[in-house]
């Protein structure tokens, strides 16, 4: 059924009176359409006999590539999480996720050690005692184990045991180890504080490991509280202080 002329005239806002003039033209034009079906070419005839089958569903390459990338990233993340190499926040997230939804767990990130910034060196800073017991202590002072060395290092994996050690455990000014050679006098609040007025028999604690001797202690070190204030927590590996005897001749601070 061809488009009627009347419809075309209406669509064109033309009068239907034109149909009488135009109908022969359009009829002649319709005569160009053959009644019979044209003979198909051999190639088309073969296609008509066996049409193209609908294409089976095949995932596209992009979907495959995206899936492969996702699997790869998950694998890398899992390996990194198992090795505890992820950033702290990511490691914590993966660990929480695995503990909730997965049959296995990834390790929790290592907690960073509490940052203890050493005080800037000042006059109130207590000098360090010499490491060796043979050398006399230059002055009576509260000897605290290596101030600079006590700076806690950055957290490393597996350092939790040392990092968690509180500074009070490395330097035990309040809890001295009992030593038969240097008994702490009774009434002394802290063995880390030496009071020059007591005399040469007073023990002076000094760390066994390292530390430089700072002979200048301008402040009066005799006050236990003062010395305790100047104590710098240490996280060094030598928690046990050694006790040295002050030479009898050292009476003036800053000399010797």
């Amino acid at each position, binding site marked *: 059924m061809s488009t009627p002329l009347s419809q075309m005239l209406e669509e064109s806002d033309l009068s239907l009176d034109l149909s009488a*003039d135009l109908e022969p033209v359009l009829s002649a034009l319709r005569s160009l*359409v053959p009644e019979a079906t044209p003979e198909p070419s051999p190639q088309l005839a073969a296609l008509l006999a066996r049409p193209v089958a609908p294409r089976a569903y095949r995932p596209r390459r992009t979907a495959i590539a995206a899936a492969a990338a996702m699997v790869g990233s998950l694998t890398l993340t899992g390996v990194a999480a198992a090795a505890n190499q992820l950033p702290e926040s990511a490691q914590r997230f993966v660990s929480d996720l695995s503990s909730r939804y997965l049959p296995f767990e990834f390790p929790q990130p290592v907690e960073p050690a509490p940052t203890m910034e050493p005080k800037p060196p000042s006059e109130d800073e207590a000098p360090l005692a010499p490491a060796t017991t043979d050398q006399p202590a230059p002055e009576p002072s509260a000897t605290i184990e290596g101030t600079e060395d006590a700076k806690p290092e950055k957290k490393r994996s597996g350092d939790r045991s040392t990092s968690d050690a509180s500074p009070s455990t490395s330097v035990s000014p309040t809890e001295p180890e009992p030593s038969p050679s240097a008994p702490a006098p009774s009434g002394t609040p802290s063995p880390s504080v030496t009071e020059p007025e007591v005399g040469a028999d007073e023990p002076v604690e000094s760390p066994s490991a390292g530390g430089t001797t700072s002979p200048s202690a301008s402040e009066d070190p005799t006050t236990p509280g003062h010395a305790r204030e100047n104590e710098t927590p240490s996280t060094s590996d030598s928690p046990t202080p050694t006790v040295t005897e002050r030479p009898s001749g050292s009476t003036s601070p800053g000399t010797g």
Partner: protein
Amino acid sequence: MAELGDDVVAAARAGRADAVGVVYTALSPKVLGYLRSRGVEDAEGLTSEVFLQVLKRLPNLRGGAAELRTFVFSVAHARAVDDIRRRSRRPAESPYEPERDDRVTASAEVAAFEDADNPDVVNVLARLNDDQRTVVQLRVIGDLSLEQTAAVLGRSTGAVKQLQRRALLQLRTLVESGEVAL
């Protein structure tokens, strides 16, 4: 002539040979008539090429009979234009005929009309411009709606309506003036 319905198109899209045969039976005569009216050199062979392209893409087509008809005539129109352009670049060699050397041939398409089966109709259509002629051919021979014709030509429906109006008025002028006799 076989009627083309949406169910037939769906079956043809699914690969049923009988439905594909119905599609070819319903549309191929119109395509052949359209190509003839366009003055295509080998209208039958080009009709087969059109349906080869259509059937290969049939499983991916969407829509029903109207959409399939639009697609078929889009392919036919493109192939006709290609044929005309090809012939204009490399005209067919033929012995020189002085009576045909009027040197007023506007295009290869108009020259092809002179070889058509119905020269009277072709002569009438040759008086229209290309756009007007194509609109009339698609609407009358291809039985396309305004919207389908607009889709084939890549124009708006309003533009096609204006082309159709001017074509009808031009044809009426030609008939009234007696310049064409059918």
